[in-house]
């Protein structure tokens, strides 16, 4: 068997044949190890926010993002081993939205793993979502990597069960990103206990890749770029040589390194969000490491959505962001500094004007 570790360039050449596919709002993930037979890829699609208007009408703009991601993912060559959908399939968690989203996802030709987002959850506390997609937290092994999915968008019981007169209001209060009536996300004790047990049987040299909807780190509480018990989850990952967290929710490029754990955000298929530092009235902690994505051009409705390759050579992440109407970005683990860095734009004098957010 020849080397299946196909370089990004080769891959892009193949992708070039699919002209429409040059700007996918999804993440193609390549895991490649020294042991080349273990190399494989998966794609990551996230934050579709399918939004029901009335009857058979849904917001066209968000529909197009997911339809495109699904169609282009099906054209990928080499084929990904599986797909991960990173949460927020729906906007307000209704059956029409989840059904429509599930129907769009059903066009995928691959095994699909789903992550719960707050927009899927807070109408009926995940009941209908679970009927469609199964358990809300689980793990599996694939070609030498241990994968974990957590439901990281839970919050305090009082907020969830006692504060709101109706389920619809609870959903609306959580759906507003900047709504001061919202509540911080958390993984919670039940899942942390499960995770501790799940990881007991995993060798410390096995690469761990954890998928969550919210960042398992604290960036800006006001918009829930935040997980309340992030440190406790991080502590469970600390014994492992190589741990990576991939998360959605933030609709933007973010990357960070906290001790042994690499963090990478994925793009949305629906719309981009501002970086928290763009809000002049509050302090935030965007990882200093992150060189932001280019500011979105609203006149291109798919701008600032994108897709990326993740290459986990020897368990460390190299991420290639392929961005719509923008220069591609590559963020690679630098063994000298022990952190992910953008290969072109990391140095202060390399940052270009569109990457400056204010």
């Amino acid at each position: 068997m020849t080397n299946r570790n196909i370089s990004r360039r080769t891959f892009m050449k193949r992708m070039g044949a699919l002209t429409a596919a040059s700007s996918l709002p999804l993440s193609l993930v390549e895991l490649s190890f020294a042991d080349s037979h273990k190399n494989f890829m998966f794609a990551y699609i996230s934050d579709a926010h399918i939004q029901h208007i009335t009857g058979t009408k849904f917001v066209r703009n968000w529909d197009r993002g997911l339809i495109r991601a699904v169609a282009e993912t099906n054209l990928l060559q080499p084929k990904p081993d599986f797909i991960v959908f990173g949460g927020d399939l729906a906007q307000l968690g209704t059956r029409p939205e989840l059904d429509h989203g599930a129907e769009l996802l059903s066009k995928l030709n691959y095994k699909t793993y789903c992550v719960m987002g707050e927009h899927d959850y807070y109408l009926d506390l995940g009941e209908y979502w679970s009927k469609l997609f199964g358990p809300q937290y689980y793990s599996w092994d694939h070609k030498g990597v241990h994968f974990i999915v957590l439901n990281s968008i839970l919050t305090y019981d009082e907020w969830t069960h006692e504060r709101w007169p109706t389920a619809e209001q609870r959903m609306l209060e959580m759906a507003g990103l900047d709504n001061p009536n919202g509540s911080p996300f958390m993984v919670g004790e039940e899942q942390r206990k499960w995770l501790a047990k799940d990881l007991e049987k995993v060798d410390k040299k096995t690469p761990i890749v954890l998928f969550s909807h919210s960042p398992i780190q604290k960036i800006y509480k006001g918009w829930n770029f935040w997980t309340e018990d992030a440190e406790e989850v991080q502590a469970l990952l600390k014994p492992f040589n190589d741990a990576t967290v991939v998360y959605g929710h933030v609709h933007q490029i973010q990357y960070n390194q906290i001790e042994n754990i690499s963090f990478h955000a994925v793009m949305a298929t629906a719309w981009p969000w501002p970086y928290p530092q763009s809000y002049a009235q509050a302090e935030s902690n965007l990882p200093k490491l992150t060189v932001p994505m280019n500011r979105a051009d609203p006149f291109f409705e798919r701008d600032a959505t994108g897709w990326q390759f993740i290459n986990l050579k020897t368990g460390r992440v190299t991420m290639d962001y392929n961005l719509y109407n923008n220069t591609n970005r590559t963020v690679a683990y630098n063994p000298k500094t022990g952190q992910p860095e953008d290969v072109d734009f990391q140095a202060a004098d390399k940052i270009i004007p569109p990457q400056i957010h204010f």
Partner: protein
Amino acid sequence: MSRKRNNLLVAAVFIMIFIFIIVVGYADEFSKEDLERWQKEYMSVVETGRELWVSADLGTNGVSCAQCHPNAANTHPETYPKFQQQLGRVVALRDMINWCLQNPLEGEPLALDDPRLVAIEAYVTYERRGVPLEPGKH
């Protein structure tokens, strides 16, 4: 007209001005209470603007301004008017608000003197308070 009548008229005018001042106050003097009241008036319009900002009814598809612009971030009111390169001309913030109403929100633009447009501008600008004016900045 006699000199005496003239004096009387002048006195009458002065008395009238005096009464006018007592009744309505000096134009250039205001109290702490006035300032508080005016700020309250302004903030009530800001609040109306915030309600519109998160409203699903401003356009036709249920999309709200806040969906893409939490806390009105990435609207940069301090940079307008500016050359909007996609339109090829200098525009005001309200032109961009109307652009968003027509495109992502699939709705109708507001008249430039519509109190709702003023309220949206008041909210967007309030969220950006303290940031220096930089008209023209892209």
